[in-house]
């Protein structure tokens, strides 16, 4: 039967107040709480649900990065994935890593593992790129169901309800396919202690991008990172005339 690849990204936890490094080269990540990207949690939940409904046989969780990402893979295993793959990327390669490199890795893995579905979160909350799913589908020349808020498997096809600007769009695509999870697709389950303990025994295979024939060179260079400008305090005025005068003075009208 079928196998599903799920991508999970280790990002700074959504509840953390982000601070920019003093040298403006990036944000502070040392000692800061990290967790699984919320949209990846939704992707994992959907894959596990499909397995529970017996549409698919095996769910493989994949993450790219240094050793710490194995924690994120373990969380995915605790949520119900069967095994994990850790693609080791560290140092400069990790800092420069972006959707293009990841999608190449996932495309190679999807072929290697003979996956019928690749399910990713629609975007990561650190870079908000919203590109990896689409690029992966393009590299594989597979159909894509992005911003999925509902997924139904129908034989060899997948019905996907997508969240779009105007409302909802329903499409039917054939497998193998790439799906990206949107917010309302499901509510991810909490990892329970017994499942966390079981997850420790599940296997995580390690490999390098080179093993998959992927070149990690990035064409993008981050020049500078700045905080958004601090919001200025408002000014109270006594009369409408004062208001108009002030608006004229600062060029608003």
């Amino acid at each position: 039967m079928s196998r599903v690849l799920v991508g999970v990204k280790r990002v700074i936890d959504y509840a953390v107040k982000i601070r920019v490094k003093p040298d403006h080269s990036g944000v502070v990540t040392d000692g800061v709480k990290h967790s699984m990207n919320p949209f990846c949690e939704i992707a994992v939940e959907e894959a596990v649900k499909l397995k529970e409904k017996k549409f698919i046989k095996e769910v493989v969780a994949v993450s790219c990065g240094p050793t710490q990402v194995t924690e994120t893979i373990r969380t995915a295993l605790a949520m119900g994935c069967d095994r994990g793959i850790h693609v080791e990327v560290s140092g400069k390669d990790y800092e420069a890593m972006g959707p293009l490199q990841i999608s190449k890795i996932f495309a190679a893995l999807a072929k290697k593992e003979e996956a019928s579905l690749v399910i990713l979160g629609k975007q990561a909350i650190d870079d908000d790129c919203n590109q990896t799913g689409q690029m992966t589908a393009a590299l594989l020349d597979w159909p894509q169901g992005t911003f999925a808020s509902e997924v139904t498997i129908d034989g060899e096809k997948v019905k996907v309800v997508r969240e779009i600007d105007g409302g909802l769009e329903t499409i039917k695509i054939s497998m193998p396919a790439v799906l990206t999870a949107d917010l309302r697709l499901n509510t991810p389950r909490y990892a329970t202690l017994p499942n966390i303990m079981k997850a420790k025994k599940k296997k995580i295979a390690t490999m390098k991008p080179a093993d998959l024939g992927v070149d990690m060179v990035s064409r993008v260079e981050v020049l500078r990172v700045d905080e958004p400008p601090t919001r200025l305090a408002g000014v109270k005025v006594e009369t409408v005339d004062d208001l108009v005068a002030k608006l004229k003075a600062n060029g608003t009208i």
Partner: protein
Amino acid sequence: MTFALRPTRRLYAHLSTSNFVQCRTIKKEHTLKNGGWERVIPAFRSVCGEDGVSLGEAVREQHGRDESVHRCRPPDVVVWPRSVEEVSALAKICHHHHLHIIPFGTGTGLEGGVGALKGGVCFSLRNMDRVLDLHQEDFDVSVEPGVTRKGLNSYLRDTGLWFPVDPGADASLCGMAATSASGTNAVRYGTMRENVLNLEVVLADGSIIHTAGRGRRPRKTSAGYNLTNLFVGSEGTLGVITKTTLRLYGVPEAMVSAVCTFPSVQAAVDSTVQVLQTGVPIARIEFLDDVMIDACNSFNSLSYPVAPTLFLEFHGTEKSLEEQVTVTEEITQANGGSDFSWARDAETRGRLWKARHDAWYAALALRPGCKAYSTDVCVPLSRLPQIIVETKEDLMLNGLTGPIAGHVGDGNFHCIMVMDPNDQDEVIRVHEFTERLARRALALDGTCTGEHGVGLGKRALLREEMGPLAIEVMQGLKATLDPKNLMNPGKVL
């Protein structure tokens, strides 16, 4: 909007008998005895930074009220310390200048605990928001006052652990310790009293103490006087809680929710008692009376039978849930319960419990434009049918709107008193009703406040409940820990 600068004394005299009317007038600022605010404010700023001190009207108003019906009593200044050292330094300044100190967490209290009756300095602790020292294998974690219940559980979501005390609001955990909060699943997981292992507290003179010793977190101890539980429930009158070490639990593997209707209050409570006696580790058991169910039906377009109803929730493994539900269903049927429906998946469970979750709003919707005040008595389980029946009679006799929702597993119930704050007569009748209710509970070996605290409005009832000698001991402790009576004056005692 402009505010009257001088308090109108006649208005205040009229309101002194009733705390229920919201009033927008701001009291004149309290003047200091030595040196005035000009010396103190810069001292505060040198501790908390320029941004850490505010005299703004709107800011002070925001910190002078909580979610109760008590009117806003703003402090003279609000400060935002960032560490326990800053809290201590600020306390020392206040101690030297004889300024009152009011700790503020999330302002979600229900008894007017944050009102600055005598002005003073509000210590707003929300910037101290770190989760410290999580020990997964030991099931404990320490948090600062800015960490809320939902915030902590979100932080813990990957660990398989959670903090189950759930008072409804997304309250500060240290604030919950200060008010000895409880919640809908206290019947299985206990209240704050059972789940706080250690506290870091800054006393009125700036001393920093650790109630169980610095960094200590054994699951049990018999070392010395139980200082931790002295401060739990002290409502900011003995010290400022700057860190609490909490007991965590494993996230339940699965949950089942159920609803069941009963022919009488007695039948519902009897079922509760029997479920507990059978040893079913039920997680939540909530009672809604017929008036409340009717309100919920109207509010959510549901069609529950209009009769006393129990909402139940079970936690456990798949197998144990089957057993728990079967045993409970048998008990409810034996007591004349009907329409027992239950659900396993999150969505259906949510729908089943929606009525209970929205109870507060459903009650308010009974009379749009009105405000609601929640009573909070708690009695031994066996006395629950009697007190509920007598209370319902009282409500009907006095033409009051008071749908009932209760944590029957603990013998605790709330009458949600819906009233028009502008109808002075109704306000007074509600006030008198709540006093009768509290005295009824005291007469049945209960307490006037099961989970909300004493705050501003129940001090006289506390004296009746405890008796003069116990109150004297409490006053002695207060005098020892806070001889200048700076900490949150006018509350509890």
